[in-house]
């Protein structure tokens, strides 16, 4: 098993023929992902990377029956692309694009929740189930099928966690980047629920960072709902208050959202803390072997 995506996932790519869409679709196809087509308005009828291109998601649904969509369109068009996919009936949407206005996300979130659609991202590396399907921009070769579920707000930090758990032989059930924006489509809690139910997952690595209180809410949830061990690393202990650290969501505002507060809360709720980014893998090893 795994979560969200597997070898049966039939993926369409919105923004298929653009440079980012093309680069990452090529790599995903090479990894074995079943891309059944793409959407670029005005280019319907063309063939790109040996897959059909459609003018709209609706057209793609009629022709190739996708059950997931990945979005690479520029930030200013993301709102309409996400809503288009959701209204056409796609139930899993992954948005890679960074830089969507926060007020757009408030609208998007409200609408997808009403439609019962799951959105991963935006501003994220995507989702991978090693050996089955790669829906994102992560380097496939560092992953290995295995027992660790990984959830993260950051791209390259996810890769660190992946590499370390691969090197120690654990591998990953699935890895989900929920993204670095203040209003993400899916939360840590949404993903924790899925990993708890997934037989293949033996332990969960949760990589958080400063800003907001998603980690604190997750800690409370873990305490009463998650039976599997959770190992967490929080980035940004040295980040100054009031400064945005790259990600739109990574900012300590009004004294809230510090790494110290998050770590304290996580510890109180029984989460194991890797106190350094290089020790995520060894912490997993220590917990699973104890």
């Amino acid at each position, binding site marked *: 098993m795994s979560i969200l995506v597997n070898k049966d996932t039939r993926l369409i790519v919105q923004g298929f023929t653009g440079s980012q869409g093309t680069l990452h679709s090529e790599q995903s196809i090479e990894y074995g992902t079943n891309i059944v087509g793409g959407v670029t308005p005005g280019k319907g009828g063309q063939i790109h990377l040996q897959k059909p291109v459609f003018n709209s998601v609706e057209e793609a649904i009629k022709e190739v029956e996708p059950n997931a969509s990945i979005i690479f369109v520029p930030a200013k068009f993301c709102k309409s692309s996400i809503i288009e996919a959701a209204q056409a009936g796609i139930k899993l949407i992954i948005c890679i694009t960074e830089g969507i206005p926060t*007020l757009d996300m408030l609208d998007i979130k409200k609408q997808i929740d009403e439609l019962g659609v799951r959105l991963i991202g935006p501003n994220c590396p995507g989702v991978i189930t090693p050996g089955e399907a790669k829906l994102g921009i992560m380097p496939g070769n560092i992953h290995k099928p295995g027992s660790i579920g990984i959830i993260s707000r*950051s791209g*390259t*930090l996810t890769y660190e966690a992946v590499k370390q758990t691969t090197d120690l032989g654990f591998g990953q059930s699935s890895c989900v980047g929920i993204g670095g924006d203040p209003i993400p489509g899916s939360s840590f809690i949404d993903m924790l629920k899925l990993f708890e139910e997934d037989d293949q997952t033996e332990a969960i690595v949760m990589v958080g960072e400063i800003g907001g*209180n998603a980690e604190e809410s997750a800690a409370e949830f873990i305490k009463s709902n998650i039976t599997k061990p959770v190992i967490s690393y929080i980035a940004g202990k040295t*980040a100054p208050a009031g400064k945005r650290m790259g990600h739109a969501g990574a900012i300590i505002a009004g004294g809230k959202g510090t790494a110290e507060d998050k770590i304290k809360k996580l510890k109180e709720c029984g989460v194991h803390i890797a106190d350094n980014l290089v020790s995520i893998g060894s912490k997993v090893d220590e917990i699973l072997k104890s």
Partner: protein
Amino acid sequence: MNLHEYQGKALFAEYNLPVSKGKIIFKAEDVIEACNEIGGSKWVVKAQVHAGGRGKAGGVELIDDPNEGVKFANKWLGKNLITYQTDKDGQPVNSILIEECTEIVKELYLSAVIDRESQKIVFIGSCEGGVNIEEVAKNAPEKIIYQGVTYGDKSLPEDATNIAKVLKLDEKQTDQFLPIIENLLRLFIEKDLSLLEINPLVINEKGDLHCLDAKINIDSNALYRQPELQDMYDESQEDPQEAEAAKSDLSYVSLDGNIGCMVNGAGLAMGTMDTIKFFGGNPANFLDVGGTATQERVAKAFKIILKDPEVKVVLVNIFGGIVRCDLIAEGIIAAIKEVDINIPVVVRLEGNNAEKGSKILSKANIKIESINNLSHAAKKAVELAK
């Protein structure tokens, strides 16, 4: 992006919010004319900087003679104002807002933010204004209300009334308050704000509500559709290196340490800073060089890092994902040659083709320590910075 008070108040006026009659001046010789134009016999002069705490720092004065305003302008224009919210150098004062004087009967607090948890725009109100709201939140949380609102929602009048109660407004003021909330919310949405703060919102001698200050932050991701707000950007209020980095689309924040950091990915950049600290060092900056880490971007990043005279060593930490480490290594070498760096550089490459990348680095005829283990690389950088 932040706005100055006078820019925020111009927006307030556009949205029919009660603000004082005022004029912005950039030269001391314009003070007298501005006072005459505003009229009356008492004025407030306010130094315009992107920071709070101006009053206590001497950046706000009450005057009853325009000549005192000239003196104030001569004292501050071209100087830096240091408040508890600025760094030790303060923020440059390039303009002064002159306003008619408002008799204050009571000071209140009102702000709006996007709340991540409820995923709504939330108004924060308190009957204690003109003070640091974080202190009020800590010491008297019962005096603060957090009210989620939705534009166009039928419950908006009720939501506004809830806030009015905590602000202890009388009937007349409560009637004034509803359109204030409506207009602020419309402003927030139409102009893509991320923060709006009026501290203080006051009750004047006529018993009317009046906005005495205006702090506005705009969502940078939405600036593309707010061209008139883009024009309000004041580079002089930004850290010069941060502004320079932003122009090259690099995310940079300067810190107090002496180990320069260049990392791909915001999370990993923070993680790298923390690792340096973990091994006893101090990072000089946060810098996300981005996913591609090309020669051009790496060179630009080196130039920005090296403008900080404190930097004694640079730690480059790249997780090669889609872009292979051997290509990144070649880019780093070319960038180092281009920028002509004469302090040690420690490079940690991980991921795709990492070994090949480090071989290229060690063979290059320049001063690079290539260490693929992050702990070792961070320790080495800490040692070299001593």
